């Protein structure tokens, strides 16, 4: 059978499955009811011009969504969060329109909104599908507007134009206008300057020169005072804080040249340097603008994570369901989620089962199936069915919120090397000013070159030596590094941690849960005499240790059990658990625990042991073995290749530890450690001058983690990781641990390259300028090129 295109969406399907319709002698085909509905609607509204514009583009078939969530758009909480009031008293909202494929879609949406009564303004950005709608609240409700958009086959949801983005866009536009003015003036001044230069050689009447000088003056003035006002502002704040920065140098250079030129123009003596003034401003401005652009790119990465947070959730209260703003939802409330909805608050699944998409958090595209009792983290998305879950946190403690906070913090906290660079550039600026003054005095008094020549040479020195590149070197590289890492699910809590990470010399790994999967399974079971399995079950159930869990799982698989009420329950760190039940003392743990309680028992094997004793008599023994994580061996190998020593720290017995260490290729193993031993080991590494990254599970390694230079928690849930780690690995994999080392090293390498690049540039350029080989114009160009090379070098991190 022939394939025919759907009249609305243009996708081709088999003729037999299409909805056929006759209209004024033509046969129309529709792939679904949705497309049919939209087609007729567009015809009725006289908007069939849409299909002309559509051309060869194809659309998605129209989904007929239920419109039962519309009332939420008119809720007070929603309005408070998203709707702004314009100065004319209208309401304004930012929406993201889903389903836009081509310019025709933009046209159609705008057209339909324009025809809707009460809509005052509707503009849709084609590149990012964001729309701004202004409407009159007295005439139309927002829900009606959303309904209109849905009726033509698209969907709209609100977004909070995150402050980061709005600011960045505003800043960008401000720079645009300034650059436009500067470029316009520079271009025109260059024409006039060419006339002046040729006049200089061929002889030009003073009266004509005066006219040209005046024209240059007219063009240079707005450039200096409008385009250049950014530098004046920067210089003012710098000086106010007793800090000489690059803005001081730029504005000093440009202003000096300007004042001298005005003087030359009025007295009709000497040359004018208005062309240098505009050039300096233009080049430096463009360099600064490039910096802004890359900052915006980093902000975009942040917004991608933040915008995935929903604003309301459907709370189940008895038989009723209420839509509540997520800020007011308390712990312990039940929330219903439909397919496609995102989780805003952490919790535990209570009803149903569904696949979850965790890709925003981990970058992993494989969905994960969760059933009743499983933990649900904010930021994940339900894919296939309706579920209910109970919140265990409030929104402001939930994972997604923490991650967003963390990322914006990371950008503001500066690494040491940047503080250093800023300090250096401060001293540097002062030095350059002094050199410039010395140059002026030298040329004027010693060489006897005259006021004009001396001034121009010293201006060149000031301009060429701008420490832009110096100031840019670190922030550019860290910013790009942080955003690249965030994309791969690695969050650096502070930019300074990148530096520490890059300098790491020793990596201390916990065994359980880091190198191994952390879920030991029973491989051997010995029963010395018959005993009540329920006692053992109750004992292991009370402990969260992976070994206890392994035994518990084994018991559950093999016996019918019920829980008993135990007394005097006590957990002994790194040994086991102690409790009593109706006059009998129960002990469950390793050999160490037995020794501690003076029970004589010998047993030797290279697996982990769990021994159960009742009243001092060993009744059962379990041998457990953990599986090494896949790719652990490759990971150790590649970390070693980076020049980092690897040590394994574990509370487990030496036999077990050595077996695992051999398997993955670690030579240095410290076994039988109590948590405090691990911490003191870290201290001893510090004494040897090592910079230590500790990877542990975040719960019983917490002291060691706190002592290390960089703590990374792995394998114990994302919320603990966010809390204790300096570097958060959202997908918990050894690979991303390796990646974080690689990224940190790359960033640091690039920072060092940037710094030496700018240093080298100054070492060459400044002496040339002092000797008078460089005109202010060339100086401005050279300076911009040095900033550009630093920016370009930093962008190489993205590629690596």
């Amino acid at each position, binding site marked *: 059978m022939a394939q025919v295109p759907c009249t609305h969406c243009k996708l081709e399907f088999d003729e037999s499955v299409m909805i056929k319709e006759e209209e004024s002698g033509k046969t129309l085909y529709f792939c679904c009811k949705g497309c049919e509905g939209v087609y007729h609607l567009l015809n009725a509204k006289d908007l069939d011009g849409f299909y002309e514009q559509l051309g060869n583009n194809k659309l998605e078939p129209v989904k007929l969504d239920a419109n039962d969530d519309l009332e939420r758009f008119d809720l007070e909480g929603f309005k408070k969060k998203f709707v702004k009031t314009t100065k004319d*008293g209208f309401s304004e909202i930012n929406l993201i329109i889903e389903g836009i494929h081509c310019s025709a879609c933009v046209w159609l949406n705008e057209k339909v909104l324009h025809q809707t009564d009460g809509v005052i303004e509707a503009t849709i*950005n084609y*590149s990012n599908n964001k729309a701004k709608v202004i409407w009159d609240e007295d005439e139309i409700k927002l829900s009606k507007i959303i309904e209109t958009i849905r009726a033509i086959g698209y969907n709209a949801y609100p977004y909070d134009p995150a402050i980061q983005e709005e600011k960045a866009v505003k800043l960008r*536009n401000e720079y645009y206008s300034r650059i436009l003015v500067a470029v*316009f003036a520079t271009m025109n001044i260059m024409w006039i300057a060419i006339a002046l230069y040729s006049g200089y050689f061929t002889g030009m009447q003073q009266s004509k020169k005066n006219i040209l000088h005046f024209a240059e003056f007219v063009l240079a003035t707005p450039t200096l005072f409008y385009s250049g006002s950014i530098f004046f502002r920067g210089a003012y704040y710098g000086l106010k804080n007793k800090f000489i920065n690059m803005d001081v140098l730029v504005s000093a250079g440009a202003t000096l040249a300007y004042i001298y030129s005005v003087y030359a123009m009025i007295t009709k003596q000497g040359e004018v340097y208005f062309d240098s003034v505009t050039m300096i401003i233009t080049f430096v401005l463009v360099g600064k603008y490039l910096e802004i652009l890359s900052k915006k790119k980093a902000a975009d990465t942040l917004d991608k994570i933040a915008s995935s947070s929903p604003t309301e959730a459907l709370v189940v209260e008895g038989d009723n369901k209420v839509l509540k703003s997520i800020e007011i939802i308390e712990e312990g409330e039940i929330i219903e989620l439909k397919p496609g909805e995102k989780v805003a608050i952490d919790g535990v699944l209570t009803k149903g089962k569904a696949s979850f998409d965790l890709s925003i958090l981990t970058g992993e595209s494989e969905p994960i199936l969760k059933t009743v009792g499983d933990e649900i983290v904010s930021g994940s998305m339900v894919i296939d069915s309706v579920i209910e879950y109970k919140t265990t946190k409030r929104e402001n403690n939930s994972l997604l919120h923490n991650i967003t906070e963390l990322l914006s913090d990371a950008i503001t906290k500066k690494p040491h090397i940047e503080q250093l660079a800023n300090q250096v550039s401060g001293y540097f600026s002062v030095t350059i000013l002094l050199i410039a003054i010395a140059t002026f005095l030298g040329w004027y008094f010693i060489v006897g070159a005259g006021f004009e020549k001396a001034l121009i040479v010293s201006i060149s020195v000031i301009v060429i030596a701008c420490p832009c590149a110096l100031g840019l070197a670190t922030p550019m590289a860290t910013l790009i590094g942080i955003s690249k890492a965030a994309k791969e699910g690695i969050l650096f809590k502070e930019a300074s941690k990148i530096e520490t990470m890059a300098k790491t010399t020793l990596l201390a790994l916990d065994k359980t849960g880091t190198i191994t999967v952390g879920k030991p399974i029973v491989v051997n079971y010995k029963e010395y005499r018959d005993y009540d399995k329920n006692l053992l079950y109750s004992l292991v159930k009370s402990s969260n240790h992976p070994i206890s869990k392994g035994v518990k799982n084994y018991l559950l698989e093999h016996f019918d059990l019920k829980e008993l009420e135990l007394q005097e329950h006590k957990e002994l760190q790194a040994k086991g658990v102690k409790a009593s039940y109706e006059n009998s003392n129960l002990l469950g743990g390793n050999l160490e625990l037995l020794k501690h309680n003076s029970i004589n028992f010998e047993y030797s094997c290279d697996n982990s042991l769990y021994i159960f004793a009742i009243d001092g008599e060993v009744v059962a023994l379990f041998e457990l073995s953990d599986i090494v994580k896949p790719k652990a061996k490759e990971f150790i190998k590649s970390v070693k290749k980076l020049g980092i020593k690897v040590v394994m720290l574990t509370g487990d017995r030496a036999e077990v530890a050595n077996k695992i260490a051999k398997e993955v290729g670690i030579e240095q193993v410290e076994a039988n450690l109590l948590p405090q031993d691990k911490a003191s080991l870290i201290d001893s590494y510090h004494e040897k001058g090592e910079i230590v990254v500790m990877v542990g599970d975040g719960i019983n390694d917490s002291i060691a983690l706190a002592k290390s230079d960089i703590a990374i928690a792995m394998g114990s849930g994302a919320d603990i990781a966010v809390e204790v780690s300096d570097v958060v690995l959202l997908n918990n994999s050894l690979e991303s641990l390796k990646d974080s080392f690689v990224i940190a090293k790359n960033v640091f390498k690039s920072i060092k390259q940037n710094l030496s690049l700018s240093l080298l540039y100054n070492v060459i350029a400044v002496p040339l300028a002092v000797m008078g080989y460089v005109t202010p114009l060339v100086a401005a160009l050279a300076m911009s090129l040095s900033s550009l090379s630093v920016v370009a070098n930093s962008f190489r991190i993205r590629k690596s």
Partner: protein
Amino acid sequence: MSDNIIILMLGISTFLGALGLWALLWGLKSGQFNDQSKFLDTARYDSEEDYKDAVMMEQKKKDAIKRKKEKEKNYMPND
């Protein structure tokens, strides 16, 4: 070439250039260049209809503001 002619030529050309610059800045400020692809499409699909549309929107806005003002004027607290 007399000085006056140079003044005239320089003055007029700079003025015209400045006019163009002003238009560009205005366009930038009113957000006309925020969306690159749409900006180009406007040129591609330029039609009388779009013009009418823009006029209609402007009229709508004016009306809405007028209505709002009237409402404020006629506002009486119910006592």
